[in-house]
């Protein structure tokens, strides 16, 4: 059994003047490992290899990275899904500053998330029990609340690459719509007012890379479409 040829993006700001690709040979013993397992094996060869990981089951969103050209979560991506011709190339998520190796600075991504005020706003006094919500109203949150903030979508989005300061990006907009769609949220008008400019929402060109890469199978493009409709309805 030949070993898997793994090409890893390396950069240590203390010692490297520029990033470079380093080759590893990883013995998978013929198993269809997850990409994260391959990284663990590579780290045993080079202790200095840096990447984030936590839940190892696709719910915490730590290990978003670019695997043979496509963003995804290393922990739930089996080799059989990405490896071509026994080669695996791993790079950090594109478009964000690299801190070290596969670890990117998520600051811009989080800033756009915070900008949409990602929390329920309700100006009515809360009842003594829960606020009631019908199953149909609650169904509208499915496909929205499940976002794990892994940044696979926003860092696959050319509009976000060009305007990360001004375009909220697919992840932030998905969350924005999660609150716009919530029957319990009363800040619809204020939320939409924050998004009215030409960049925040309207930089989305419908390229749909976000949909193609989302490891949770969510559809930010559809959410963005809904926000556009609300903005347009509001404007007339």
């Amino acid at each position, binding site marked *: 059994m030949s070993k898997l040829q793994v090409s890893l993006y390396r950069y*240590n*700001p*203390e*010692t490297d003047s520029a990033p470079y690709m380093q080759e590893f040979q990883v013995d998978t013993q013929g198993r269809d490992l997850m990409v994260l397992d391959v990284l663990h094996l590579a*780290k*045993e060869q080079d*202790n*200095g*290899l*840096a*990447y*984030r*990981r*936590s*839940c*190892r*089951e*696709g*719910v*915490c*969103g*730590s290990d978003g990275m670019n695997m043979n050209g496509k963003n995804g979560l290393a922990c*739930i991506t*089996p080799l059989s899904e990405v490896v071509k011709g026994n080669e695996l190339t791993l790079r950090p998520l594109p478009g964000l500053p690299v*801190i*070290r*190796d596969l*670890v990117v600075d*998520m600051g811009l991504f*989080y800033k756009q998330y*915070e900008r949409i*005020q*990602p*929390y*329920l706003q*309700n100006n009515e006094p*809360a009842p*003594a*029990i*829960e*606020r*009631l*919500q*019908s*199953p149909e*109203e*609650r169904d509208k*949150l499915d496909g929205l*609340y*499940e976002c*794990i*903030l892994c940044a696979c979508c926003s860092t696959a989005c050319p509009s976000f690459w060009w305007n990360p300061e001004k375009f909220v990006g697919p992840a932030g907009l998905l969350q924005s719509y999660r*609150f716009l769609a*919530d029957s*319990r*949220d009363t800040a619809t008008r204020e939320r939409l007012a924050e998004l009215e400019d030409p960049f925040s929402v309207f930089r989305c060109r419908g390229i749909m890379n976000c949909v193609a890469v989302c490891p949770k199978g969510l559809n930010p493009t559809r959410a963005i479409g809904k926000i556009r409709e609300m903005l347009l309805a509001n404007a007339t």
Partner: protein
Amino acid sequence: MSTMRSLSFDAIIIGGGGAGLRAALELAKSGKKTAVLSKVFPTRSHTVSAQGGITCAIAAADPDDDWRWHMYDTVKGGDYIADQDASEYMCSEGPKAVFELEHMGLPFSRFDNGRIYQRPFGGQSKDFGKGGQAARTCAAADRTGHALLHTLYQNNLKNNTTFLNEWYAVDLVKNANGDVVGCIAMDIETGEVVHVKSKATVIATGGAGRIFASTTNALINTGDGIGMALRAGFPMQDMEMWQFHPTGIYGAGTLVTEGCRGEGGYLINKDGERFMERYAPNAKDLAGRDVVARSMVMEILEGRGCGEKGDHVFLKLDHLGEEVLGKRLPGIVELSKTFAHVDPAQDPIPVVPTCHYMMGGIPTNVHGQAIMQDAEGNDQIVGGLFACGEAACVSVHGANRLGGNSLLDLVVFGRAAGMFIEGALNEGIEYLDASSSDVESAMKRITRWNESESGETVPELKRELQDIMQTSFGVFREEKNMVEGVERLDQLRGRIASAYLPDKSNAFNTARVEALELDNLMEVAEATAIAALERKESRGAHSRYDYPDRDDANWLKHSLYFPADKRLGKRDVNFAPKTVDMFEPKVRTY
């Protein structure tokens, strides 16, 4: 030392999971200078993996539901060493804490009448065990932990909590009087080591399932807070009590929620027999987790296990139909396909009992104040130190936690700690400052790793530790095996003390973090091992071949492990709830 930067807060919360974020929220709202220090971005904490729900008598599924029934189940589930005052507090305050979460925006699933959806979970009953199965676990599909953690993070953003994200707490700083006055922490991105001063230090670092080779826990669950507290000389309570969840996916260890059985799924052996009917005729698959896990191991040991090696059983869900699976258990469908290559709508999921939860931890009262014992064996509050969540042992879980009680524990006691600290800060807390030698002693181990020049490396030592725990301290335990485990751990401790960190760089050095985590795994493993060896009975999750019976005469007690002399003492269980009669210990059957 003089070059080290320091930061000062009224309260520092170590850990950004459910308990830490709930405590932080309370303090942020009060305007106290609070920071959450977390080694991962908060929504990457292990709370995110909780699936089935949060158990609480909100009386949505059954308008007659009563928190006292929930309290009864909790005390019984814990095999009578859950403290009854703490269980009373959790179950009675629970509804308030759950409604708050809903008001914050948590997207609970709903019943037709618009109330929060509740499903049956293991060990739940109506009318103090006499009224049949209850449905008391509030759920957001099977992603309740994710929904809860994100909601809490979002509300902390709303209230401008200060976050020190991707900072690693190394050790507690104690002053000359033994009060905890902050910690030493490392900014992982830059490697800078900082002295964090605080009037209240809250350990909310979660569990330590990574001491076992096979666990449902995240890779980050390395018992950092437990390690810090033990190194600071504080005792740990009930560390022998580890829950093995019945349904970890065979091979991968990932969790499959008890909610699957709550929705009507059940376990079968190789003959297709629903074997839990034999072990727990009434509750069947919804007996306590310890009972179900042991029954599964019995099936496997008696040759009725599934698969080529006969080393697991199956969880059957296909009869629930695609609609229920898609609506109520969508995350499980995903996980099964990914990690077991099984579509549960067609085929059963191979499962095996897998280390899941640490019932023990830092002993606290209901306000989160850490407790130690004075020379006479009386409880004594530790100045400045608090704990909540899985790292704490209040104790509401006793010898076996009920499903869905973990999330409730997080929010009820995170909230309680926050409220208490706010009050204490208002009254004024003054502790003696730490001296430079106090700070230096908290720097010892990071300095040790940084100066290491040769020796064994972290991954091999960690594997060995996990192998010892798996071999000697699993679902069933016995003296000889445990003695051997304790000896191997003792020897391993020496090797870890002289282990080697090859990578000394500063920027995002994950190897250094893993080295520091290994020290904590070692502390937790040893406390677990010694407590397990010394508790000479079987109770809840602690099950011994050589002492198969519960021994209330000698062991209706908490165990208390003292790190200085590696001694196991005892501490009284509380049997004095304030508003209800106490529940007498009874034989525990389901």
